[in-house]
């Protein structure tokens, strides 16, 4: 592990992202458009939007970073640059952390834009802590990037990588209680939801949005997400093989 190599990798990934303004624009604008869309879909009943807005603030960076990371990693694999990097003294974690840092920075901007929209024109009032919301949203992005790194190893083509999202992210998002509260789910689904990290990520941000109190429940959510992220990175590191058949 080396700070220099990690930072160089993060800069390189950010620079590549900047060279792709279309992707960048989609990453930043799609959450805003979806947010506005949902706000006016629930125009008659503001309470619904007030309830799901914080969840979405946490969900968007997770989903987006998952997709972007799994595709970026796949590209690195198939272009041969990963093989070349792994033939240098670089540590696998330098590469993974470099990606994570770059995408966390991107997520920070995205979360800022979404928050500005939600708190400004969409007039959602947040009773909780804004700082904690941002912290959770960025952690969600890191978790998404970490899981994307892990699962990109399952994909051989970009088509497969894109399919990973409906296969792995949608179920987690549904089970986290976005449409149906978890308490209303049948017990096996509740059990499954409790085993998935996104559940805690979404719960955490909802709690952070609803009150300024920093209770044990919130602490648990924070710890689960904080532990799952390095775990995802470690599993990701295992999928990077220096020697291939």
């Amino acid at each position, binding site marked *: 592990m080396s700070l220099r190599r990690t930072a160089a990798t993060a800069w390189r990934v950010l620079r590549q992202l900047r060279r792709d303004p279309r992707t960048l624009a989609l990453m930043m604008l799609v959450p805003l458009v979806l947010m506005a869309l949902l706000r006016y879909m629930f125009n008659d009943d503001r309470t619904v939007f007030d309830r799901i807005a914080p969840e979405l603030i946490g969900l968007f960076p997770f989903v987006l970073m998952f997709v972007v990371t799994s595709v970026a990693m796949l590209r690195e694999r198939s272009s041969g*640059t990963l093989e070349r990097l792994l033939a240098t003294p*670089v540590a696998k974690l*330098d590469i993974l952390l470099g990606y994570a840092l770059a995408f966390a920075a991107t997520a920070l901007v995205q979360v800022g834009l979404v928050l500005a929209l939600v708190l400004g024109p969409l007039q959602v009032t947040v009773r909780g802590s804004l700082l904690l919301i941002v912290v959770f949203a960025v952690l969600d992005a890191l978790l998404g990037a970490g899981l994307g790194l892990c699962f990109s190893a399952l994909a051989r083509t970009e088509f497969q990588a894109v399919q990973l999202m409906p296969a792995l992210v949608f179920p987690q998002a549904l089970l986290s209680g976005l449409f149906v509260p978890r308490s209303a789910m049948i017990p096996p689904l509740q059990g499954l939801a409790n085993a998935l990290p996104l559940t805690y990520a979404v719960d955490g941000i909802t709690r952070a949005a609803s009150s300024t109190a920093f209770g044990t429940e919130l602490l648990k959510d924070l710890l689960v997400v904080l532990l799952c992220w390095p775990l995802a990175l470690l599993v990701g590191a295992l999928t990077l093989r220096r020697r291939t058949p």
Partner: protein
Amino acid sequence: MNYAVEVRGLTVVRGGRPVVAGVDLVVPAGTLVGLLGPSGAGKTTLMRALVGVQRISAGSVTVVGHPAGSPGARHLVGYVTQAPAVYGDLTVRENLAYFASILGVSGSRVAAAIREVSLEGRAGDRVGNLAGGEVSRVSLATALLASPPLLILDEPTVGLDPLLREDLWSLFARLAAEGSTVLVSSHVMDEARRCQRLVLLRAGRVVADEAPAALLQRTRASDLDGAFLQVVRQLELPG
């Protein structure tokens, strides 16, 4: 003796077939070696084993005194993959600057490496907008950055015009004269006359390993293409 490459009984199975079968190869430091053979002979596979990115079935591979692929070896080996492995969305200079930080070499090496592959005029251009031969030179430049004692170059001259090819072969010869060991694969036999030593690979086996002049003399062929045919025919003679 100071060996840059020491391969003993190397066997690599790929896709269920042995594609490198019991190869022995010992190369003293400071040698320019050509690795030749038809498509599918196992050149890339052997080079990957030297770099330490190929899973091997049997044998041992030591480079510059370290087991291939070990952290010690990774500091000392420069590798150019057959398909150029660089970032198309970055400029030539940005690609090299990134690999320079990864390799821990000073930024001044970036301009020097660009010069060595004659890409000064394109340093600020995006690699994705370059011609194929230019991209492969960017890939080559990244391997030159750290001036490693062992350079493994997989077909670095493919798709280049004769003038540039000549320039690159002079560069390889100069690097070898300065003490680096340079292993270059190619399937153009004629290029290989610039090598001090030729290793002919066929179906995963070394079928000849000698200096170009010695090979020509032994086979009484007029050129290296003819010499290779001669070697293969001799192998296929019964008894």
